[in-house]
């Protein structure tokens, strides 16, 4: 009996919450809870905050946005079901989301079949390579991070490098991408070590790398692993400088590793982290400072690049609907693909028929940690 009452209440509530017909229905499936919540939480908060702001300013082409957001908990099967629901039941005109590569790839067939434009917030290069007609993404790829790091290593005269990678999804994906582009970037990987994401000590792996004669060390991983690697790197007094990935681009990393151990560590990251240090004439400055101040005053939390990806996706979509002057999914798709010179938190975006990522290596800043803070490497 309880179940039946509950279900009818739920049905009644759904009916009440139903949108007015003129609204622009934009869907989102975000991993707000579950193992990817540290990515999904700032994304969801950003979307809610920015949609409210856009609606307060009169919406898009005079219509308010109705954001329909589901929490897939990082489960690709659930994401797939929500994707079907967004398309079939909620009749959205475009979708933002897919916090992880897994949830994104599970949803792709649904949007491709239904011909609904989809802007993913996940990292892997598979999402946009090969190019899928209706699928775009806003974050940099792991491969670009590798290229940016190798570029910096080569500029400092390092050619023999050691890799140490986490065995989680992020670490493995980046490890594979880095090995792929190493040769073309002019570096040789002389050591390739792996650790479990929960490991508390990485000195054996680092000792192996030290013995291999590597001139620089690259750690691909996220979470607490890179902090342990950074501490061990200092404890073992390894001379070869340490590079971290964009996966640790948050203040929390410096706190975990300790500013002493983190001193001199370099990593590629979006300009969002160093908003104040950007040159006054940098076109990105007003965008990143505006988003950061808005997010931090609204949520009371530090801004992260992940929320920035959602910000970029929403505003790319807004610009596309405005330039298309229509809410037809096909017209929106064409307008998204025609996006050029869009300045977001990740950099300048120029989509084209064979590039649904639209970012170049310039979008990354190479940062160095000095006195417990980020500084831009010139």
């Amino acid at each position: 009996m309880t179940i039946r009452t509950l279900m009818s209440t739920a049905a009644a509530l759904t009916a009440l919450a139903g949108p007015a017909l003129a609204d622009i229905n934009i869907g989102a499936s975000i991993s707000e809870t579950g193992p990817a919540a540290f990515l999904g939480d700032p994304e969801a908060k950003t979307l809610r905050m920015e949609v409210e702001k856009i609606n307060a300013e009169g919406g898009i082409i005079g219509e308010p946005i109705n954001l329909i957001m589901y929490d897939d908990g990082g489960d690709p099967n659930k994401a797939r079901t929500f994707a079907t629901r967004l398309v079939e039941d909620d009749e959205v005109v475009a979708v933002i989301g897919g916090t992880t590569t897994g949830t994104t790839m599970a949803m792709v067939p649904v949007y491709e079949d239904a011909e609904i434009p989809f802007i993913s917030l996940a990292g892997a290069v598979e999402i946009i390579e090969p190019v899928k007609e209706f699928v775009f993404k806003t974050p940099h790829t792991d491969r670009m991070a590798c290229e940016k790091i190798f570029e910096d290593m080569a500029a400092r005269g390092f050619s023999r490098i050691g890799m140490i990678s986490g065995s989680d999804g992020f670490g493995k994906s980046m490890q594979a991408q880095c090995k792929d582009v190493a040769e073309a970037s002019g570096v040789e990987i002389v050591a390739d070590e792996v650790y479990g994401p929960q490991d508390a000590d990485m000195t054996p792996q680092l000792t192996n790398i030290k013995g291999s004669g590597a001139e620089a060390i690259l750690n691909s991983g996220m979470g607490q692993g890179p902090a342990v690697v950074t501490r061990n790197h200092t404890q073992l007094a390894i001379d070869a400088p340490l590079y971290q990935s964009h996966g640790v681009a948050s203040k929390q990393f410096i706190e975990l590793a300790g500013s002493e151990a983190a001193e001199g560590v370099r990593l590629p990251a979006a300009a969002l982290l160093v908003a104040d240090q950007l040159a006054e004439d940098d076109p990105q400055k007003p965008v990143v400072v505006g988003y950061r101040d808005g997010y931090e005053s609204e949520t009371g939390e530090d801004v992260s690049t992940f929320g920035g990806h959602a910000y970029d996706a929403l505003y790319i979509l807004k610009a596309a609907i405005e330039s298309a002057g229509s809410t037809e999914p096909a017209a929106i798709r064409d307008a998204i693909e025609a996006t050029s010179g869009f300045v977001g938190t990740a950099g300048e975006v120029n989509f084209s028929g064979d590039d649904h990522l639209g970012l170049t290596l310039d979008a990354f800043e190479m940062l160095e940690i000095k006195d417990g803070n980020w500084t831009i490497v010139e």
Partner: protein
Amino acid sequence: MRLSPRATTLLVLAVLIALSPLMFPSNFYYRVGSLIFMNGLAVTGMVILIGYAGQISLGHAGFSGIGAYSCAIMPVQWGIHPLLAPLLGAAISALLAWLVGRPILRLKGYYLAVATLGFGILVYMVLMNEAALTGGPDGITVADSGLPDLAEAAGLDLSNSQFWYWMSGLVLLAGAWLALNLYDSPTGRALRALHGSEVAARTVGVDVARYKLQAFVISAVYASVAGSLLALQNKFITPDVAGYMHSIELVTMTVLGGAHSVLGAVFGAAILTMLPQVLTVFAEYEHLLLGLIMMLVMIFLRDGLLPSLMRLIRGKSE
């Protein structure tokens, strides 16, 4: 005329599968329906293991994972026909269940639970780490089975969700029919006997070890086929399908709906598959409500939802 319980169950299932679409306002409901049937199929296997034989497994998602990844890997790596892959996957699951089950089923109660849990996690780890073959944590694309196109060529104009609704509905019916037949067979009687008391069953000449193993292998095949169906419908699969949370979901569905009856277990699968979709309106309280509902059912309706409700209805009418 009075129908046997077996025929009644099958009839109720068939009518539900056939008539539910009349109430579907959109294609999305076919998708949820197909998920219910796929979970229902795996759970029917669990009824044989938990309800008939009285054994527990917290690792059956591992077999779903094997079924799902067979559909993803075999056609691409070894050129096996996409329709043969689910069958081979089921065969591999059966073989593995047999190998693993022999030592594991000597254990009882929570020892058995922990051992099966370990097996499930092992499969999950292999799927996560053998990235060259399985695509690793990011998952792998599943080649198109060609079945929906075949249906279209046969003149059936169905969307992807609709096709898999009918397909998994049919497979569930077949699975339920087999499970119900098993119940009344000598094997089924032996299973129920050892469920009651292993010592008593052994005294009357039941080969306890063999029958337990049989139930384990059969339920593994059910889970494997369910995993294959899911992979073929989604066309993309990640190791989560073999994750231990999925194993626990399967057991929860079985126990929630009523472990002793096929219809009850399918009912449990339906509720746990639908609830997250219904509860999205409560967003933050979703998990809270889900937990609360399960606790209440387990405290007040210990035989499972459906059997308890049926008793309530019968009790009133008499």
